[in-house]
């Protein structure tokens, strides 16, 4: 593909939409940030944000897109963290090998979790998924000679030789894996996932092998969550039972729902906003968690579908004819040329449907 075509693709598909342009700007900003600001604490917070963003996006893939609401996602994170930790410590393998190995074990765990969950739906599925990290925690304590028990495993090799390299490794991975996950959801497989979530019976009636695709979703989600687990253990240089904890399971749920479920980029945005925010709130240690919770409640009150859909509704509009997104400032659709009226009644509830005009505020 020639450079000219690439450029045209770029201007035609990315720069035309404010949402995508902003994403691009933020990505570029993050890539060049260390040229201006290399404080180890900032880089630490951002690196952890990237790692957890991959984790949140993997949750969104399974729970947002396929509708298999997993409340025990820590199982994939933790099993990969422990696998990569133990391989590194006992077999002396470098992170480059242990992290993919951990991710593959997480894929296997995806099958182990997915198969019993095939017949379950809704809250029963969620409860079942909660059981797995608890089971694995029990095993960790039972075989504490191998796993280090309550203390966990420590003394792991670093993710990268310097904090800066760790930052870039995590950044490249979150951008790359996030992009891959987004492309998966944008493909035929993604369409099938969507169909399974909306109406599994109809999907099956259409001839789709839904158990296969559900297992595929568990495995894919497990893979990406496993990568983040391996990155985490090598970044922290410690892998312990907290990686299988309830907090670890619940955090991606909170971040994703805040950011906008069923959109991959929503999960990433949610993590990018909430994780550094929690860190920033350290200035008020007694009220930290309270402020955090209040903020989330307020945001979800006024942006019930999450931050990203609310934002996109503000800056982009959907063409009534071809359904393509356009910048809000456009008068005609960039694809089919239909005249674009004022933005239609939004799902966000602040607009008044039927009035046809934007209500101030």
């Amino acid at each position, binding site marked *: 593909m020639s450079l000219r075509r690439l450029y045209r693709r770029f201007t035609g598909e990315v720069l035309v939409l*404010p949402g995508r*342009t*902003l994403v691009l*700007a*933020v990505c*570029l*900003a993050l890539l060049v*940030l260390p040229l*201006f*600001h290399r*404080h*180890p*604490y*900032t880089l*630490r*917070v951002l690196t*952890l944000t990237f790692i957890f963003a991959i984790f949140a996006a993997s949750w969104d893939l399974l729970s947002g897109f396929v509708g298999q609401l997993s409340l025990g996602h820590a199982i994939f994170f933790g099993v990969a963290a422990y696998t990569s930790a133990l391989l590194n410590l006992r077999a002396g393998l470098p992170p480059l090998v242990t992290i993919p190995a951990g991710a593959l074990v997480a894929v296997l765990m995806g099958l182990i979790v997915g198969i019993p969950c095939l017949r379950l739906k809704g809250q029963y599925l969620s409860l079942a998924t909660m059981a797995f990290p608890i089971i694995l925690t029990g095993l960790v*304590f039972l075989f*504490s000679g191998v796993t*280090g*028990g*309550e*203390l*966990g495993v*420590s*003394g792991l090799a670093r993710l990268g030789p310097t904090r800066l390299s760790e930052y870039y490794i995590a950044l490249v991975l979150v951008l790359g894996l996030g992009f891959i996950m987004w492309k998966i959801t944008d493909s035929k497989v993604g369409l099938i996932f969507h169909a399974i979530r909306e109406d599994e019976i109809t999907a099956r009636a259409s001839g789709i092998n839904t158990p296969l695709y559900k297992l595929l979703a568990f495995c894919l989600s497990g893979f990406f969550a496993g990568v983040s687990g391996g990155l*985490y253990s090598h970044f*922290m*240089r*410690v892998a*312990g*039972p*907290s990686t299988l904890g309830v*907090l670890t399971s619940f955090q991606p749920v909170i971040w994703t729902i805040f950011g906008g479920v069923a959109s991959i980029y929503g999960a990433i945005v949610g993590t990018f906003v909430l994780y*550094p925010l*929690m*860190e*920033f709130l*350290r200035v008020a*240690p*007694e009220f*930290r968690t309270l402020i955090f919770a209040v903020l989330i409640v307020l945001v979800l009150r006024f942006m019930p579908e999450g931050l990203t859909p609310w934002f996109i509704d503000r800056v982009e509009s959907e063409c009534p004819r071809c359904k393509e997104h356009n*910048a809000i*400032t456009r008068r005609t659709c960039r694809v089919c040329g239909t005249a674009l009226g004022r933005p239609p009644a939004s799902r966000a509830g602040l607009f008044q449907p039927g009035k046809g005009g934007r209500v101030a505020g």
Partner: protein
Amino acid sequence: MRKRWAALILVVTVFLTTLSFIGCTKAAAPKVIRIAVAGPMQFIQGQHHWLGAQMAAEEINKAGGVQVGNKKYQIELVQVDTNELLSVDDAASAVEKAITVNKVNAIVGTIRSEAAMAIQEVAMDHKTIMMVCGASLPQMAEKVGKDYNRYKYWFRVTPINATYLVKASMLLLNHVGAVVRKELGIQKPKVAAVIEKAVAGDPLAAAAAKLIPTFGMEFVGVWRPSPTATDLTAELTAIRKAGAQIIYTYFSATAGVPYAKQWGELQIPAASVGINVEAQAKGFMEATGGKGNYEYTLNTYAPVQITPKTIPFYEEFTKRAGQFPTYNAGTYDAIYIYKEAVERAKSLDPDAVVPELEKTNFLSAAGKIVFDKNHDVTWGPGYVTALGTQWQDGKLVAVWPNGWEGITYPGTVDYKLPPWVVAQWKKK
């Protein structure tokens, strides 16, 4: 098009500017030593970390400060809420912030071992001196031996590590065994073990089964209740049926309260001894409805004269906190130890202070603190021995060491068997 670009540039600029403020450091005031007190500040462990450190810093600053070479430095404490009981990465980030943003010279505190390991990595990365006052697992100290150059900045001031805790609690068990033999005339007492079902309890349960017979006692069984159990009548009645004269306990969490309460209410005819962290607290009598008398637990502090510092420290801390000091209050001693090492080294440079810390021979409120080759606090007669404390008439008193290895701290009283135990067994 131009407006959109302008908006974008504005957004990016704001984003970058905000980020650059996150890492802003205040201009470091001269002649101040900053010490981070790291712990879960919303919980009692962190609160005791902070109070103990505060006491030490105030005393030192009032006396003129720390003499580094020919300059006097004041101590400034930085409170770091690690939230480690809930999140390990939160704890590590908090400590990294303290080191890189607040520019602390040393860290004291920590409690949860998994988080302490992660914090240890961060502190060693930045070559910052770290003095643990809470996490007891021995593996952290072993790293000093394995990779000295990296981990040499790590020290443990309190508590004595888990291996020693087990040894000390077994000494308490033998103490009670000797009393049972003498006062009840039972030469081979039956011992039941009640060890909470937590990871730290597993090796202890195994050790109990193995070692108790070697003490000339009969091991009748081990019961493993949940650490947060609220009803232990099943275990206690089974122990009564088994005919035990002694119960060896390990409780690090809330089950210690209902255990002692029901033990007293049901008047189980067995003397209770071991580790019961809840029984170290001032509110124990109230929590057990007054039934917790005669409970006997390993402890770090009591109003006895382990060293001339112990009683003044104990009384001042209890006055300030409204609670008895737990081992976390050892930050008090940690800061003094650090001060002395810095003064001997005549420098704040960690590489100069570490060799001086290794030479520590300090009479602390808990005993004489000397570090072993793994920078772990030494346990033994003449060093930190820990204490056995028993509730008698609603008061917590020290009953051990009472002649052990020739040691009896002034203020120690004799251990008392619960009267219902004596009544049950003495007729035999």
